[in-house]
């Protein structure tokens, strides 16, 4: 089966901290905007791919009911960075296979009401027997997602050199993108001095190496390329996909080979299994005009640049210096401002930005001729989106 899918509409609620709206109300706003954007009617939606659900949100049946949808295909993950790509891919697979005509990918997040669930006694995932989903080991105080990223960065710096000052290039440049985006929660320039004087969360990660915790919803509408051609917007086509990788080579916030958790120690570099997505899309790294990634912590951007072969082993810290990834940079990353500075809408704000970029409607953030963009995470899952 060939993938035959395109993004035809995106809509968002407002993003912010302690928003008064419920998850369902946020999702309803996003859905309405996505329908207006696409020219589709509510009745056209017959599939749901959910990036939410217990324990972090409403389940599919409550969302279908609450949004007045009549659904014949459902995929449900839960609100977790690892399942963004999977949620998007299931939408593309479902329309390609004819299981649904139009799939709505829905995420609605109220992190600021539920912040206790990310580290600590209320963190059912992190506190569970056998360790948490971010490599948590609560007995020894390794009790939050940031711990795994910090362990990875510490070892990476030992192996390849590097400092917190050099790492700061990542959040500083992503903030520069955010300042060009009116939806961004963060409105002030991030200087090296501000980064270095911000409090440590888990050393070597400063506050500004850690993403925002915000509320907001995004709905992304996916249908076939044929159907997309008849709709309001320029289609954004699924050109290639690869799924999440899972084995002992993987630790949630480390590149394969680094040796965190149970990972064997090898070389941290791009392998053929990491770059299948380019072959599937018929492009190479050189064709990609911008990279979008789940920037929960700034080291993840480095790991992604190496994993997908944009630079070699241990080279990413140098690659990002001197506007490597900022506005007008050699390879812009997360031009919306990312999880680090726009908002934490679990990466769907990045998918929304990719859609705008490929349509050519990203305003002051527009990458010239943004015809090929990559979404790729530290977990090895990726989607390449292109202009038709």
């Amino acid at each position, binding site marked *: 089966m060939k993938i035959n899918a395109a993004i035809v509409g995106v809509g968002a609620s407002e993003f912010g901290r302690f928003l008064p709206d419920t998850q369902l109300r946020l999702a309803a706003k996003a859905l309405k905007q996505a329908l207006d954007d696409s020219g589709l009617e509510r009745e056209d939606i017959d599939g749901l791919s959910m990036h939410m659900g217990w324990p972090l949100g409403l389940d599919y049946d409550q969302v279908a009911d609450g949004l007045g949808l009549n659904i014949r295909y459902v995929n449900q993950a839960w609100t977790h960075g690892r399942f963004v790509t999977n949620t998007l891919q299931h939408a593309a697979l479902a329309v390609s296979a004819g299981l649904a005509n139009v799939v709505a990918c829905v995420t609605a997040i109220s992190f600021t009401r539920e912040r206790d669930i990310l580290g600590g006694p209320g963190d059912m995932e992190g506190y569970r027997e056998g360790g948490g989903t971010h490599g948590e080991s*609560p007995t020894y105080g390794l009790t939050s997602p940031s711990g795994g990223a910090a362990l990875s960065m510490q*070892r990476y710096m030992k192996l390849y050199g590097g400092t917190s000052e050099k790492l700061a290039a990542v959040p500083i440049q992503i903030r520069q993108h955010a300042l060009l985006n009116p939806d961004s929660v963060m409105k002030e320039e991030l200087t090296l001095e501000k980064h270095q004087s911000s409090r440590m969360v888990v050393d070597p990660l400063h506050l500004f190496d850690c993403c925002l915790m915000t509320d907001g919803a995004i709905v992304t509408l996916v249908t076939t390329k044929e159907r997309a051609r008849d709709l309001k917007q320029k289609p954004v086509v699924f050109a290639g996909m690869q799924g999440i990788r899972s084995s002992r080579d993987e630790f949630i916030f480390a590149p394969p080979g680094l040796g965190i958790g149970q990972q064997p120690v090898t070389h941290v570099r791009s392998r053929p299994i990491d770059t299948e997505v380019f072959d599937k899309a018929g492009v190479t790294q050189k064709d990609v005009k911008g990279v979008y990634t789940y920037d929960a912590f700034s080291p993840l951007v480095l790991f992604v640049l190496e994993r997908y072969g944009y630079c070699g082993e241990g080279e990413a810290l140098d690659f990002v210096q001197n506007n490597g990834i900022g506005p007008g940079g050699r390879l812009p990353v997360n031009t919306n401002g990312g999880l680090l500075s726009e908002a934490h809408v679990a990466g769907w704000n990045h998918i929304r930005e990719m859609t705008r970029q490929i349509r050519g409607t990203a305003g002051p953030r527009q990458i010239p001729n943004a015809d090929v963009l990559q979404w790729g995470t530290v977990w090895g899952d990726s989607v390449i989106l292109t202009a038709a």
Partner: protein
Amino acid sequence: MTPIDTTVPEKPRPKLDGPEKPFWDGLREGEIRVQRCENCGRHRFPASRYCPHCHSPEFQWEAVAGEGEVESFCVFHKAYFPGFVPEMPYTVLQVKLDSGVRFFSNPAEGEAKDALAVGTRVRAVFEPVDNDLTLLKFRSAEARS
């Protein structure tokens, strides 16, 4: 009837009577006991039914030596459980023992905050918490016991 305890634990406690019972029993007796695969001979931890290397279900629990090396560490400046507040900032280590098994752990009590770095040789310290629980911590191999 005993009321159900719903208070937040000072520090999270591991499950002592689960698949890793031999490990926790061993720590109380001053030994690091892990699984050794009877097919390929490799040691492993955490506990698993099958060897992650050769998938054999045959294994024995056996003691391994307490010497190893710090592979990475991080320092928490935020406490998610009240029991860690007095120790802040506190260090979490990843240690690889010479037998190949890895543990997340902490520096042993009294260890200087900056004594352990990536690559530091360390040795095991058995720190009793109470009658039921002893934790595996590490001290720089050069330090006197």
